[in-house]
Structure formats: structure tokens, C-alpha cells
């Protein structure tokens, strides 16, 4: 649709990132979520009588869920907006609209860029690198949907093999995997440039302050907003360091 501007080596990623097909896919994802919600809501209403749940109470539960989601949704929107310059709107909407997160998506795209000998965002961030990054984070994210699709029926049958898994596996393995992944990714940023190092430290410090504030000042909203605030403050510091 943009035949004239598609160029694997161009660092102008917008023709690919804002490709009409990606907008259609984002709309499609949203439509599927709406379809699922409509089907579930009808099923819940029909089942309500047998579970002492009136239609009125179903409505109340929907509203309670909606109100509870306002704060976290705004916090997620802030993080999503901060990713727009890197990935463009359709990719951010598809990834965050579906199961996804800033942490995983940026990590996945960064790993994918590395296989091209490139880095996200810099002079080596070409259309081709964006495309591989987007495809890798999307296909990687799909693994969660596949495991949910496969494991849910197995778990609902009360599968004995899965229940017999040593509980320590469920604590040690994901904790080690997650911490090792993000420590490595974070440390790798420190050697790129002094500005990267400072940006990383500022982000970590702001997040630490937000989490401390959430705990000791009893401001639980700081917990939700921590990531968004840390990203914005760290980027602002990076901006002022490079502007002078």
C-alpha cells in the first residue's frame, strides 16, 4: 500500500508501523474482545438465577469491574503512549490490547533487533528491524495464548500430573527466569553510553521511590503508576542530558 516508501534499510519506520493492514488487525483484536464479552455476558445472565445472582447484580459487577479498572487503565495508557515513538500506534494497540506488556514487548523486540546486529531506536533501527521486532514480540506473545488454550482444559480436569509438580518449581523457575532476563537486559543497557546508564539508574530509582511510597505512605496508586512515571522521568532526564 506504500510501495514507494517501503525500504528495508530506511530508518523511517512509519510506512511499516502505520501500515493499513496493522490498523485492521488492531481493530480485529478489539472486535474479538468485544465479541467474547458479549457472549460471556449473555451466558452469565442466563446462569445467574441458578447461582443467586440477579441481572441487577450482574450489572453491578460489570460496573464495579469497570470502576476498578479506571486507574490501572490510565496507568497502562501512559506506558503505551511512551512506546508510540518506538512501535507506532497499531502495534502498541494490538500488543497491549491483547495479552502483552511494556516489559515483555520491549524486551522481545530488543532481542529480535539483536539478531540483526541492530538496536531499537537508534541509527540501526530500520524498517526491517522494526518488522522483525514486531513479528517476534507478537509471535512470542502468542505463546501465552497457546499455553492458556492447551493448559486450561487440562487444569479443569484436575490433571494429577500437573498438580503433582513440586510447588518449588512454580516459585523458583519463573522468579529466576524473570530476574535473570531483566537483569541481563538492564545491565546490557549500561554499556551502550553514559546517557543509557543514567537513564536506567533514574528509571530504577524512580520506580523504587514509587514502590516505597506505595508501601509506606499507603498510596497504592503509586504501585500502578510507578512504571509510567519512571519511564517519563527517565526519558525527560535523557532529553535534558542530550540537549545540553
Amino acid at each position, binding site marked *: 500500500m506504500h510501495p514507494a516508501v*517501503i525500504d*528495508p534499510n530506511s530508518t523511517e519506520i512509519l510506512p511499516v508501523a502505520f*501500515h493499513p493492514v*496493522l490498523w485492521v*488487525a488492531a481493530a480485529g483484536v*478489539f472486535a*474479538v*474482545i468485544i*465479541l467474547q464479552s458479549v457472549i*460471556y455476558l449473555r451466558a452469565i445472565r442466563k*446462569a445467574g438465577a441458578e*447461582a443467586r445472582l440477579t441481572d441487577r*447484580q450482574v450489572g*453491578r*459487577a460489570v460496573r*464495579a*469491574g469497570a*470502576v476498578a*479498572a479506571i486507574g*490501572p487503565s*490510565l*496507568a497502562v*495508557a501512559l506506558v503505551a*503512549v511512551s512506546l508510540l*515513538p*518506538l512501535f507506532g500506534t497499531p502495534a502498541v494497540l494490538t500488543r497491549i*490490547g*491483547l*495479552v502483552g*506488556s511494556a*516489559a515483555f514487548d520491549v524486551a*522481545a523486540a530488543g532481542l529480535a533487533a*539483536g*539478531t*540483526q546486529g541492530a538496536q*531499537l531506536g*537508534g541509527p540501526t*533501527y530500520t524498517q526491517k528491524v522494526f518488522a*522483525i*521486532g514486531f*513479528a517476534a514480540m507478537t509471535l512470542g506473545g502468542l505463546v501465552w*495464548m497457546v499455553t492458556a*488454550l492447551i493448559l*486450561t*482444559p487440562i487444569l479443569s480436569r484436575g490433571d494429577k500430573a500437573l498438580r503433582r509438580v513440586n510447588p518449588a518449581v512454580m*516459585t523458583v523457575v*519463573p522468579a*529466576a*527466569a524473570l*530476574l*535473570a*532476563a531483566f*537483569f541481563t537486559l538492564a*545491565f546490557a543497557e549500561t554499556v551502550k553510553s553514559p546517557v543509557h546508564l543514567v537513564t536506567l*539508574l533514574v528509571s*530504577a530509582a*524512580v*520506580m523504587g521511590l514509587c514502590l516505597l511510597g506505595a508501601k509506606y505512605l499507603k498510596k497504592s496508586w503509586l504501585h500502578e503508576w*510507578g512504571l509510567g512515571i*519512571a519511564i517519563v522521568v527517565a526519558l525527560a532526564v535523557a532529553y535534558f542530558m542530550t540537549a545540553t
Partner: protein
Amino acid sequence: MSSRTSNAPLTGLAQFDRTTSIWGPITLALGFLVSLGAALFVAFGTGLGITAAELWKAVGLVIVTFGVIAVVEPIAYYPILGRSAMYQAFMIGNIANKLLPAALIAQTDLGEKPGTRRAELIAGAAIIGAAFIHLITLVVLVGILGTLLLAAMPPDLVAIARLYILPAVFGAVTVQAVVTMKNVRITVIAAVIAALLVFVVVPLVPALANLATASAVVIAIVAAWFLRKRTEGPPAAPQSIGH
């Protein structure tokens, strides 16, 4: 799930179980297919000359790094979400920070404790409400206002936001992971292994740079397993990178 004879008319909860066990997987699979199509289109349909080998190399690295978490998370969330809500949660995302609190608040509001059938229906309804707000804020704040903001931003600001978004995300996420896990031993193990790889191994063998993260994950899992405290109790809250 209640047992039932195959031809008896289904009512109430049995009908709910049937509907969600059919349409839950179908809608989740639809979401899967749309995403799959978008990813394959960007890689192969845009004329960028990306080969299958290049794509699988990138995807393989992502799966080696995060695949184990993708297997553990559904198992960890199942007891809390219940069967029907699994298909909602793994489509909508933001499970720990948005969907679970929404479900718990709605259950408290209607005087129900998690674990009953009534609680399951309330959680499903609350997740629908949360998903509605989620989609509205994404469309309005990110899709419309965010895109306008992006277009209005000076190019040098966009360039900075692109160039330094990785350290800005990873600094905060690493601190968040450390605090959430509350496990000093595994934190130290992971940090030491990551530091050795990034500051010692990769400078000596630059060819390993791309494999550093995946290697750190695999080594840390093995090391943490053999060095674990043998008295550790069952898992508390599910661990998540924000899904």
C-alpha cells in the same frame, strides 16, 4: 464442572460451562489468528525481504528467553481465575494489575468469596467491565490522543524517546521484579549471573552478545533450582511481567 448426560437440556450453570468452554477457546483462538496474521504480514507481506530463517531466529530467541514464563503463568493463574475467566484473561492481558483487582472488588461488593460458582460469574462480569474501560482508554488516549501527540512532537523529542526507551523501561521493570519476587537468594543469583555474562563473557566473546539474555535465563533457572532454600513454602501470588 458439573457432570451431565449428553442429551439432557442444559440449564443455568451447565449451559454457562458449555458456552464458555466452546466460545472461550474459539474467541481466544480468533485473537491468536488475527495477531498471527499481523505478525506474518509485517514480516513477509510488506516486501522487506525478511527470510523465514531471520524471523525464526528472532522468535526462537524470544521463546527460549520467556517461554518458561509463558508456561508457568497459566498454571499459576488458573486457581484464581477459574476455567471460564482464563479465556478472557489471556486475551485481554493486564491480569495481575487490572483484571484480578477488578474481580476481587466486584466479589467483595456483592458479598461473595472467591471459589464459589457465584463468585466465578461475578468475576466474569467484572472482567467484562474492566475490558470495556481498557478498550475505551486505549482507543481514546492511545489510539487518538497518543497518535496526535506523536504527530505533534518535535522530531528530536521522538528520537530521544526511541533511543532511550529501553533503559527507561528496563530500569523500572527490574526493580519491580525484584520487589515483587521478594526472594533475596534468587535475586542475588540472577544478578550475579547476568553481570558475569554482560560484563565478562560478552566482552571476551562478542559473538555471544545476542545469546546473553537467553543464556542468563537458562543458567539462572538451573542455579536457582540447585541453590534453592529447601524449606520454601507454596507459591504466593502469581509472578508476572505484567500480563
